[in-house]
């Protein structure tokens, strides 16, 4: 094989037989199984758990369920889907759905999930667009992970959460704490609304958040502020483009006169960088705009700037995924059908080119005698396994406590 055809091979998307190989030899079924089961012994959490399979043809098969690792592996291998997704735990096994009345199937629990997609940052993203992603714009996602993590841990006291690369340009957060799993739809909606600050993705409106900021926003702003200059003003530099500045920077200011003055100044001096424009706001405000209550005006201006930092950098969540218990989300360790990258667990140090590609993994396997332990996938599996161990420990702790409670109350009778 010559160099150029190898090059070609590297960008080609995984074929059906590549996927077959991956499911047969590499996919960590047991880890995923235990992760969803919250216990080493197969119980309701996995037996009544919905899986959905998506196929190359566009077909989508819902309501699969498996009662053992072996059944899980065999079924996926046999169907050989492009990817498969994880849904809720029901009161009955989803595979028996056909023999049940529709009203009998009720969703009970599921991990609380969040989904962040790079698309939502396009207003302020200049390095890439659409499905592309690079080191620079991945920083949006990294920052989002930090903010969401802090919120979930400090405010909601969730501990067992893990972030998973979505395979191309986003990340999923799975919260496995029991208290999070049993949230109903109304509660999910409210947790989401609490976390989701930038609801309207149109930059042509002012965010105008309530003052004083809620402590959650105060803390988030503190987390984001140090990165604003580097990520937005320098690297992305979205407002160098004057039209973009008129459309996305000016509307977030509170004073009409100031906006007019800036518009005039930037029309006369086109192409000033984002950093220059950011500083221009203060300069023009203190020079051109005449106001009686200077003190008040400065405070308002500072608030607008704080809102802008939130608007550009605060995590932009895909709300549909979180809202409903029954919503399905792609399983960790699936392979993204168009990039060939594996959806591996990630932390704040991750960047998308660190994700192992199925093509490379296959070669690694060839070279080391099919020993998965020596591949670049194994470290990710280990990280996930550790996470699963932690969840199982926590869950057994709760189960024990609950049994003790029960024993205590039953003694009373």
């Amino acid at each position: 094989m010559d160099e150029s055809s190898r090059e070609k091979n590297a960008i080609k998307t995984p074929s059906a037989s590549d996927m077959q190989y991956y499911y047969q030899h590499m996919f960590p079924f047991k880890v995923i199984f235990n992760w969803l089961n919250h216990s080493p012994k197969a119980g309701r959490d996995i037996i009544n758990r919905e899986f959905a399979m998506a196929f190359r043809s566009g077909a989508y098969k819902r309501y699969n369920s498996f009662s053992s690792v072996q059944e899980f592996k065999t079924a996926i291998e046999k169907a050989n889907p492009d990817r498969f997704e994880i849904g809720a735990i029901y009161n009955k096994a989803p595979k028996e759905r056909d023999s049940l009345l529709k009203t009998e199937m009720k969703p009970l629990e599921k991990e609380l999930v969040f989904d962040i997609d790079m698309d939502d940052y396009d207003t302020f993203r200049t390095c890439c667009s659409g499905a592309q992603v690079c080191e620079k714009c991945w920083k949006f996602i990294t920052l989002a992970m930090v903010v969401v993590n802090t919120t979930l841990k400090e405010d909601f006291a969730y501990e067992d959460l893990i972030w998973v690369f979505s395979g191309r340009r986003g990340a999923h957060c799975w919260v496995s704490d029991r208290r999070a799993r049993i949230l109903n739809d109304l509660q999910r909606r409210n947790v989401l609304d609490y976390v989701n600050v930038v609801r309207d993705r149109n930059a042509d409106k002012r965010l105008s958040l309530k003052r004083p900021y809620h402590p959650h926003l105060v803390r988030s702003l503190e987390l984001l502020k140090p990165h604003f200059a580097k990520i937005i003003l320098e690297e992305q530099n979205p407002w160098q483009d004057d039209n973009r500045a008129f459309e996305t920077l000016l509307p977030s200011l509170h004073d009409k006169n100031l906006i007019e003055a800036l518009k005039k100044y930037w029309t006369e001096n086109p192409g000033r960088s984002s950093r220059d424009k950011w500083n221009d706001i203060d300069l023009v405000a203190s020079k051109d705009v005449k106001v009686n209550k200077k003190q008040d005006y400065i405070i308002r201006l500072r608030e607008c700037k704080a809102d802008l930092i939130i608007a550009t950098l605060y995590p932009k969540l895909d709300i549909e995924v979180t809202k409903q218990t029954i919503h399905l989300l792609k399983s960790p360790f699936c392979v993204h059908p168009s990039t060939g990258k594996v959806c591996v667990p990630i932390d704040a140090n991750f960047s998308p080119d660190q994700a192992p590609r199925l093509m490379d993994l296959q070669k690694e396997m060839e070279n080391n005698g099919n020993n998965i332990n020596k591949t670049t996938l194994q470290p990710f599996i280990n990280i996930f396994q550790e996470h699963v161990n932690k969840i199982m420990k926590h869950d057994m702790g709760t189960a024990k406590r609950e049994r003790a409670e029960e024993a205590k109350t039953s003694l009373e009778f």
Partner: protein
Amino acid sequence: MFRQSKKRASSRKNFSVTDGEDGQLILGTSSASEKKLYDSIYASKLSFYELPPQGEITLDQFEVWAIDRLKILLEIESCVSRNKNMKEIEAIIKPHLQKTMPFNMDNLEAKKKDYYSHFILRLCFCRSQELREKFVRAETLLFKLRFNMLTSQDQIKFVQSLNLPSLQFISDEEKEKLKVQLYQTVSSQLQFQLNLHDETQREAYFKREKFIKLPFEDVIELVGNRQVFLRGGYAYLPQFQQLNLLASEFASKLTQDLIVTQRNLPQLNEDDRLLPILQHLSSGYTISDFQPDQYSKEDGDITANSVYSADIAQHYPLCVKNLFRGLRENHHLRYNGRQQLSLFLKGIGLSADEAMKFWTNAFTNGGHITVDKFNKDYRYNFRHNYGLEGTRIKYKPWDCRTILSKPRPARGEYHGCPYRDYNVEKLSNDLAQMNLTKTQISAVLDSCQKTEYTIACTQVFEYTHGSASSRASEDQTHIAHPNLYFERSRLLQKQQPSS
């Protein structure tokens, strides 16, 4: 069997039968113990309705009390479906409450009525999940409304009487430690909900305020809009927001109780007096409180000709417009259409003489029906509606409930309710012609989809009478009578003749 039940009933009486006539004796003698009981239940003016009532009431009271409460609950439900906020709902409901379910006063009868009616409706609404949810939603809102109507002293008294375990106040040290965050959270609420516009006022209030710490799931409604401070899985709830907590406690208790009630419901089957009433109350009861006499008719401007005029016709609800359309096209209406329209017109003040003129004209001007044929076949029918023939009954205009209970219109028939009978396309067309916006139309269609036709009609009224009807002083109650639609629309127009 009959005797048995009678015996059982009398053995339950805790007073002698010779005391007086039924009903009277319960109200009149009202043993001191009963008064004491209700005084203690209502010591703090509100109740969580923990124990079912034990005394006796007449069947009449049973039905009247239940209907009065039901009317209020339905009104509340209608407000909610029309997206009214708490303040607007309060403005709409308060006069009703004062009229039929006064509380907050020292009146044994009123207390009993409140207590009994709540439990009677529990019997009606415990049968299915859907009914239970409906009932809990409305009762919880009613509870909130009433709590807000109490003085702050009574509120405190009431909360203390509940003895809820989750109402644990945090220590002063904890408050001191978190004071920055807590103040950040409540500051804007103090400003907008309690109208403390001055910073020093807010700080003073904050200093006095106590905070309750509880799992955030218990006040989940306040989490989404960040009205509480969260830390470590706990929400810190300021005392002035505790109503939300009480309401969710109230709702969850009631939900559980309703399920218990449902399990015990079969025991009622032996009682053939109550079941029909319960059935009647829970099945599609809608409010039709319309009293034609409450709107004056002295103008006498409704005549055989003027009913066609734009000045009058603009106030017709869609069902009446539809009937006129059918009448104009066919110079005839079938029986149900005739009844619906002629009684409506009678209701808006068309006299018997003018009605005869109107109908003769409408039927004969097409040329198919001669005046002779009209007199022979139809005249009696219209005179009958005015109580001039036969048994001479004074017929009332049909309310929406009656209209909806009739057979649906077949081809060539025009009676019924357009919000139920039109297809989506035709309805949205008609609504667009009434100058409704796209979002408004889809809101109306939504209500139709949910088979809430009278709500759809009320929405249309509000949209078409926009600015005028949003004034707080106006009667904004649910419209469940075509004549109410007409009269209210006219009244609004009269109040602002300029526009």
